[in-house]
């Protein structure tokens, strides 16, 4: 099998409101697949369904060929998630958080002893591993969270708005590592973003608005199709309005796009 995610007519309603409306797509192994859309478009709701936190109202979703509703535990052991909002235990130390995570994912003590310093070094928190997480700044928490998501070497990584609160150096550093993992272990990535520059990293992008996929293709194909030079222009044409985003992030994007 060469698909890691298979989604058919996935729908989620909250009372009368339809957050995700009959969405279908598939993600290939080793692919970086992006959900691009404004806040409230249904990106996080889709992630929550794919990572078994939320039951779909209707439709089907398979992660690594396992049904997210019927075999949630098999899905859970395949994935790593970096949530948009913090999800650390701030009454424990950074190292406790990571070790705890390793144990929850059934890593052996030996693997934990090896991996914990490795990911702490990656996010440059090794020196501060004994500190309580509540003493951490927002950016440090974010980095720790990313370290934790990578700790158990998942086959599929969910990144929900991954660059929120990260400085450019760290961002480059982390992407470098993620891309290395993709090369070495065939890691697949499903990410959501409303930053256009970040979307450029993706192999394919689904533009989502009001819970529906309005278009899906590679960034270059999308730009060619709509005769635009930027994804922002594409988005504007497709949805008829502008997406909110921060400016001044192009340098790391150029790095990302280097051959």
């Amino acid at each position, binding site marked *: 099998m060469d698909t890691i995610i298979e989604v058919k007519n996935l729908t989620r309603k909250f009372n009368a409101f339809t957050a995700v409306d009959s969405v279908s797509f598939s993600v290939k192994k080793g692919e970086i697949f992006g959900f691009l859309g404004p806040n409230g478009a249904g990106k996080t709701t889709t992630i929550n369904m794919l*990572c*078994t*936190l*939320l*039951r779909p109202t209707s439709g089907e979703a398979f992660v690594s060929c396992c049904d997210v509703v019927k075999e949630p*535990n*098999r899905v*859970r*052991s395949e*994935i790593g*998630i970096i*949530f948009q*909002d*913090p*999800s*650390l*235990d*701030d*009454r*424990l130390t950074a190292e*406790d958080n990571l070790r*705890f*995570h390793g*144990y*929850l*994912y*059934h890593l052996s003590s030996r693997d934990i002893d090896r991996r914990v310093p490795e990911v702490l070094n990656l996010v440059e928190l090794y020196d501060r591993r004994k500190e*309580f997480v509540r003493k951490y700044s927002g950016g440090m928490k974010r980095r720790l969270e990313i370290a*934790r998501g990578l700790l158990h070497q998942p086959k599929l990584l969910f990144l929900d708005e991954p660059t929120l609160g990260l400085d450019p150096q760290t961002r480059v550093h982390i992407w470098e590592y993620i891309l290395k993992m993709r090369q070495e272990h065939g890691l697949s990535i499903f990410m959501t973003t409303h930053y256009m520059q970040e979307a450029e990293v993706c192999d394919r992008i689904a533009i989502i608005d009001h819970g529906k996929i309005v278009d899906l293709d590679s960034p270059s194909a999308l730009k060619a199709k709509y005769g635009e030079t930027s994804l922002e222009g594409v988005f504007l044409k497709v949805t008829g309005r502008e997406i909110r985003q921060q400016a001044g992030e192009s340098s790391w994007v150029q790095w990302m796009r280097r051959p």
Partner: protein
Amino acid sequence: MGDLWAIYILWLRDLKRYWYDKPRILASLGQPLLFLFVLGTALSPSFKGPMNINFSEFIFPGIITMTVLFTSIFSAISIVWDREFGFLKEVLVAPISRWSIVVGKALGGSTVAVIQGCLMLALAPLVGVKLTPLIVVSTVLGMFLIALAVSALGIVIAARMKEMEGFQMVVNFLIMPLFFLSGALFPLDRLPEWLAVLTRLDPLTYGVDLLRGFMLKINAFPMILNFSVIVGFCLVMMAIAVFEFNLAE
């Protein structure tokens, strides 16, 4: 095996948090100490207990129950904090079963509660309650059953409570009545009808009576009844907690 491991890990987390938070260990003993020494001493002259037991001795098992009650309920309700601060998501997406989350949490909270209870129990000589190894072992066991039952109740509440705002309500309308009606602070044999009925509806009453039986050898109910009510309550609450966690999305 995987589930037992997950239970152990979640249990360990609660114990670590407890151990790191030493000020809380002492702070949460303040209230029971006030009840025991201030109320106990003040009301002793006007109290006539069975077998010449003074008031401090009489309420000692009740105060231990109180310590266990408050510690386990706070511990279980911390699930609401975990939800608010996002940590619950980390646990919910981990490849572990829902029931092991509930059991791990209940065992973690109970263990912490029993440790707090033991700190109170260590004051027995000051109160004049005699401890033998058998009394200590049976009391610890009794504390653990009460703690487990209350933790399970707390998890049931936490599964429904989405924000901390509801917390004060729970304390005022559930925890305080559970405590006051349990006979922790008064004998159950001289009550007006309405109060007698209410005390018998409170599951904690049987927990207090269980500990009183172990420590002072005085009982309002047969020990087997006390034991059955607590164990039964615990099992029912545990089942509801697991059911609610499976349901929650």
